[in-house]
C-alpha cells in the first residue's frame, strides 16, 4: 500500500499514454489519422456556414537532422521520417480567444451538441497536434480568421500534464483580403510510404461523399492530387436538437437537471427533450407513476380510463376534464385533492400527517433524489409513446449529391441510389443512404467493392466487421442477377447524431438490429433496380448476340445457295439483316 501512489492524470496525459485508442497506433496510421482529423474539422467548419469547402493539404519532408535529434529510434526504420503537415480551409474560422484551447486542450471543443457532425469527441485535431508534439517537440502554428478585420496567428504547444495550451507566440495581422478560414501546420513523424495508399483512398472517398468539396493534396514527393467538386449544391446543414428520451442515461439526466431553469417536472420534460410536448409529458408522468390523474367524480383514474380527446386529459367515464394530481405525501403516499392544502407556495398533506407533500409533476427536478432519477431514467426508456426523433438534426447527402459523388469518383455505367426515411436506435435518429454502381470505370474483382461512410467520412478499416458488410454478404444476389465477379460498387452512408461505432477509432458500424434492418431494406429496394437494369442489359446483350448470329449465318446461306443454284451473283441480303436489326430495336 505504501508503495503505490495515486495521481490524477489530465485528459491530454491520458491520451498521450493511450494514443492508439484515437487511431494513432503506429507511424503509418498516425500520419493518416492526423490528416483525416484535420480534414474533417475543415469540412465541418465550411459546412457549418454552408460554404462549399476548399481544402488544401500539404505534407512536406522536414530536414533529416530532425530525426536524429528528436527520435533516435527513427533510424532503425528508414521509412519513418519527420514531415510538416499543413491543412488550409475556407471554413468558418475560429474566434481568437478560442484558438489556444481549440488546438491545445484535449476534449475541448464545439462538438458537444446534438447534431450530425463528423467529429464526435473533440479529440481528433488536438490528438494530431499532440502526437506531432510528442514525437518532434515542435510547436504547432494555427492561423485563423472569421473573415473579420484581423488574422490571428498562434504558435502553440500543449502542456500535457495540465492539459493546457502554452502560447509560444501570438501575432495579429490586418485581413486585407477578407480571408476566412483556418490554417494548421505542425511537424509530425510518420511513415508516409506505408500510409500513402490509405491516404489517397481516404481523399478519393472523401471526395465521393463530399461532392461539393475541392480537395487538394500535395505529398512529400511534390505530387499533386486534386479532387474537384462536381457541384455547388450542399446538403441542408443539420439543426441542433435536444436529446431524445430514449437516448438519455443517468449522467445526462443529472447534467440536464443541473442546468435547467424549469421548476417542475412537466416543464422540465417539455423543454429538455426532443419531441416531448404537453400531452406526451403528462402521459409519461402518469405512466411512470409519478403522478395520478383524478376526475372530480371518479377520483383516481387508471391509465386505461383516461381519454386524451382534443389534447385534453379527460375522464373516459364522464367525459369531463380530468386533472393531474400531485399526490405524494411522504407518509401516505396517495392523497386526494381534498387532502392537500397549500401554504406559502408549498403543498401539505392536510388531513393526515400535516407534512409537506411531494409535489408529483409539480416537483422541482432539482429536488429529485438519486433513486428517483434512476427511476425516471428507466421509465423514460420503458415508455412506448414518445414520438420518434425527427431528422432535422441530420444532414444526409440526399440522392442527387450521392449520385453526383459516385459519378464523379467512380464513373460507373449505371447507378442507383436510395435514401431511407429517418429511423432511430436507442433514441438516436439515423438515416441510411445507399448506392449501387455498375460498370464503367469500376474494376472487376472477386467481390463487391464496398464504400462505407458515416456522417460523410469514409471508413477505411475493419470492413469485415461492419454491419453493411454482413448485410451485403447475407443477401442472395443471384436473385438480383448480380454476382460478385461483376464490376459493382456499393456505397453505404449512415448519418446520425451518434454514429453507432463499435470502437473509439471510428472504423466500423456495429451490428444493431435497427441499423441492420435499415441497411437491408435500403439494399433490397435498390437491388430491385439493379435487377431491372441487369435484365435489360441481358436483353440488350441477347439482342446483340441474336443480330450477330443472323449477320454471321445469312451471308453463308447466301454463299452456299448461290453456288448450289449455279448462280453467279449472290443475292442481296442487306435488307434481311437490317430487318433483323429493326426487329431488335422494336423489342
Amino acid at each position, binding site marked *: 500500500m505504501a508503495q503505490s501512489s495515486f495521481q490524477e492524470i489530465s485528459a491530454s496525459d491520458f491520451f498521450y499514454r493511450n494514443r492508439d485508442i484515437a487511431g494513432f497506433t503506429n507511424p503509418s496510421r498516425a500520419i493518416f489519422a492526423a490528416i483525416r482529423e484535420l480534414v474533417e474539422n475543415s469540412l465541418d467548419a465550411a459546412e457549418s456556414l454552408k460554404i462549399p469547402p476548399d481544402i488544401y493539404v500539404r505534407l512536406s519532408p522536414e530536414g533529416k537532422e530532425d530525426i536524429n535529434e528528436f527520435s533516435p529510434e527513427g533510424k532503425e526504420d528508414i521509412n519513418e521520417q519527420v514531415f510538416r503537415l499543413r491543412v488550409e480551409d475556407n471554413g468558418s474560422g475560429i474566434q481568437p480567444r478560442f484558438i489556444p484551447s481549440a488546438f491545445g486542450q484535449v476534449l475541448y471543443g464545439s462538438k458537444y451538441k446534438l447534431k450530425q457532425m463528423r467529429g464526435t469527441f473533440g479529440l481528433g485535431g488536438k490528438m494530431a497536434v499532440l502526437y506531432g508534439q510528442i514525437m518532434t517537440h515542435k510547436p504547432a502554428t494555427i492561423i485563423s480568421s472569421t473573415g473579420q478585420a484581423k488574422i490571428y496567428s498562434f504558435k502553440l504547444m500543449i502542456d500535457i500534464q495540465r492539459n493546457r495550451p502554452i502560447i509560444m507566440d501570438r501575432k495579429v495581422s490586418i485581413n486585407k483580403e477578407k480571408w476566412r478560414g483556418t490554417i494548421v501546420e505542425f511537424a509530425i513523424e510518420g511513415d508516409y510510404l506505408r500510409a500513402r495508399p490509405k491516404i489517397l483512398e481516404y481523399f478519393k472517398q472523401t471526395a465521393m461523399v463530399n461532392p461539393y468539396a475541392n480537395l487538394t493534396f500535395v505529398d512529400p514527393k511534390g505530387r499533386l492530387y486534386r479532387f474537384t467538386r462536381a457541384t455547388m449544391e450542399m446538403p441542408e446543414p443539420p439543426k441542433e436538437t435536444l436529446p431524445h428520451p430514449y437516448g438519455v442515461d443517468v449522467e445526462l439526466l443529472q447534467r440536464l437537471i443541473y442546468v435547467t431553469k424549469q421548476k417542475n417536472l412537466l416543464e422540465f420534460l417539455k423543454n429538455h427533450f426532443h419531441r416531448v410536448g404537453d400531452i406526451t409529458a403528462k402521459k409519461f408522468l402518469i405512466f411512470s407513476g409519478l403522478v395520478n390523474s383524478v376526475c372530480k367524480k371518479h377520483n383516481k383514474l387508471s391509465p386505461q380510463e383516461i381519454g386524451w380527446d382534443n389534447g385534453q386529459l379527460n375522464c373516459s367515464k364522464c367525459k369531463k376534464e380530468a386533472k393531474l394530481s400531485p399526490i405524494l405525501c411522504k407518509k401516505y403516499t396517495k392523497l386526494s385533492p381534498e387532502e392537500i392544502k397549500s401554504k406559502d407556495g408549498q403543498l401539505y398533506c392536510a388531513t393526515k400527517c400535516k407534512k409537506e407533500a411531494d409535489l408529483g409533476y409539480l416537483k422541482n427536478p432539482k429536488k429529485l433524489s438519486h433513486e428517483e432519477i434512476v427511476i425516471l431514467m428507466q421509465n423514460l426508456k420503458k415508455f412506448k409513446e414518445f414520438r420518434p426523433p425527427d431528422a432535422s438534426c441530420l444532414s444526409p447527402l440526399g440522392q442527387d449529391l450521392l449520385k453526383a459523388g459516385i459519378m464523379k469518383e467512380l464513373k460507373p455505367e449505371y447507378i442507383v441510389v436510395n435514401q431511407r426515411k429517418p429511423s432511430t436506435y436507442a433514441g438516436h435518429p439515423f438515416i441510411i443512404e445507399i448506392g449501387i454502381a455498375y460498370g464503367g470505370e469500376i474494376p472487376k474483382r472477386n467481390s463487391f467493392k464496398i464504400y462505407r461512410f458515416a456522417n460523410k467520412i469514409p471508413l477505411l478499416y475493419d470492413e469485415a466487421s461492419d454491419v453493411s458488410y454482413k448485410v451485403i454478404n447475407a443477401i442472395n444476389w443471384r436473385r438480383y442477377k448480380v454476382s460478385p465477379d461483376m464490376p459493382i460498387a456499393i456505397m453505404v452512408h449512415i448519418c446520425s447524431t451518434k454514429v453507432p461505432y463499435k470502437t473509439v477509432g471510428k472504423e466500423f458500424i456495429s451490428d444493431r438490429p435497427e441499423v441492420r434492418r435499415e441497411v437491408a431494406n435500403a439494399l433490397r429496394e435498390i437491388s430491385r433496380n439493379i435487377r431491372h437494369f441487369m435484365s435489360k442489359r441481358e436483353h440488350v446483350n441477347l439482342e446483340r448476340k441474336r443480330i450477330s448470329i443472323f449477320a454471321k*449465318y445469312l451471308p*453463308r446461306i447466301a454463299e452456299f445457295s448461290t453456288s*448450289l*443454284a449455279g448462280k453467279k451473283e449472290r*443475292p442481296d441480303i442487306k435488307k434481311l439483316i437490317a430487318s433483323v436489326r429493326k426487329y431488335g430495336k422494336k423489342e
Partner: protein
Amino acid sequence: MGKKNKTKVAEKETEIMGSLKKLGTQMYNQLDSGVFPSINMPSRSTENINYDPHLRQYILGGKTVTRSARNIRHVKPFTQLAWAALFSNELTFHRKTSTLRDVYYSAQAYNMTFKNQQESNNIITDLETVTGHAREEFHIFPEERSAVFGDLTIEYTVPGYEGKTLNLSAHPDGVLIGPALTTSKFTNTSADKIIAIEKGGLFTRFIEENVHTKHKSILVLTSGQAPRQTRYFLRRLSDELKIPVYIFTDGDPWGMHIAMVIISGSANAAHLRNLNTPDAKWSGVWASDIVKYKLPSDPLDEVDIKRLRELQKDPRYQEDPLWQKEIKIFLKIKRKAELEAYARYGLTYIVDKYLPTKLK
C-alpha cells in the same frame, strides 16, 4: 450391259444433283426476293413415324416441320444444311465418296463448324429427309464393317473402275460392302439364295465349310445390326437376283431384331425407302430351336425380358405369327443361345445338319 448401267448411274446422279440444285435455288430465290429462306420437310418426331403394313416398313406421316432462317434457333442448322447440300453436290459431281466422320471434318475447311459428330450426322439426316434420298446416294457412307462372299460377279461403276469386274468368291475373307460394291452392277451368279449372318466367326466357318457351293448361296456378314448400306445391298440382291434371303442370328431378342430390321427397316430410317427386304426370312436361332436341339443356353436377364415385351407390341412383329410364337417361347423357357451353340454337336453340324433343315 455396262453401257446401260453407266447411263443408269449417270441418270441417278443427275437426279440427285437436280434435287440438291433445286434446294439451293429455292434458298437463293427466297433470299433474292428479300425473304428469309425456309424449308418444309416431314417431321421425324416419334408421333409422325407410322408403320405401313403395305410397305412393311416404318414411314413418316403427313406432319411437316418448317426450318426457317428467320428463327434464331434454326438459322445455324439451316446454314449447316445449306452447306451439307453444297458439299454433297460436290461429292456427287466429282464422284467422290465421303464418310460421316469425313463430313464432320470437311466442314471445318468451309469454316462451318459442327459442335460434334452427332450434330453433323443430324444435318445429313435432315438432308436425306428434305430430298428423300439416302446419304449413300450423296456419296456419304458410314464406316464399313460388313462383308459379302459368294459366287456373284459384279461390275464396278465407280470412277477408275468402270467396267472392271470381280467375282465375290475371289477373296476368302469376303469383300467389304462399301460404296464401290453397293453402286456396282450384278452381272452373273450361280447362287439361288442369300444367307445373312450376324457374326463374323460363323461367316468365316461357312466359307471354310463351302456353304456357298454346298448350298449355292451368297453369304453376307452383317456384323451385328446391319449397316444401312448392307441393308440396301441385301435389298438389291433380293430385288435384282430374285432369290430368297435367309437370316441367321443369335437366339435372343437382340438377334431377332437384327433380322427384323433387315426385313422391315428401322424407325430411324422412316424417311427413306429401299433399305428393307420384306421377303427375307429369319431362319434362326429360334427359341424353339433351343428346345428342339437342346442347345447350350444362358438364362435371359431382365433387359432381355424387357426387350421381348417391347418387341411383342412392336407393329413389325405382328406381320408373321412366327415372331409372336417365338417371343412366347423365349418368355416361357427364359433361355437364350448363340449361333455358336451348335458347336456342341461338332464343328460341321451347323452346316451339314442344321442349315439344310432351315433352308427348306
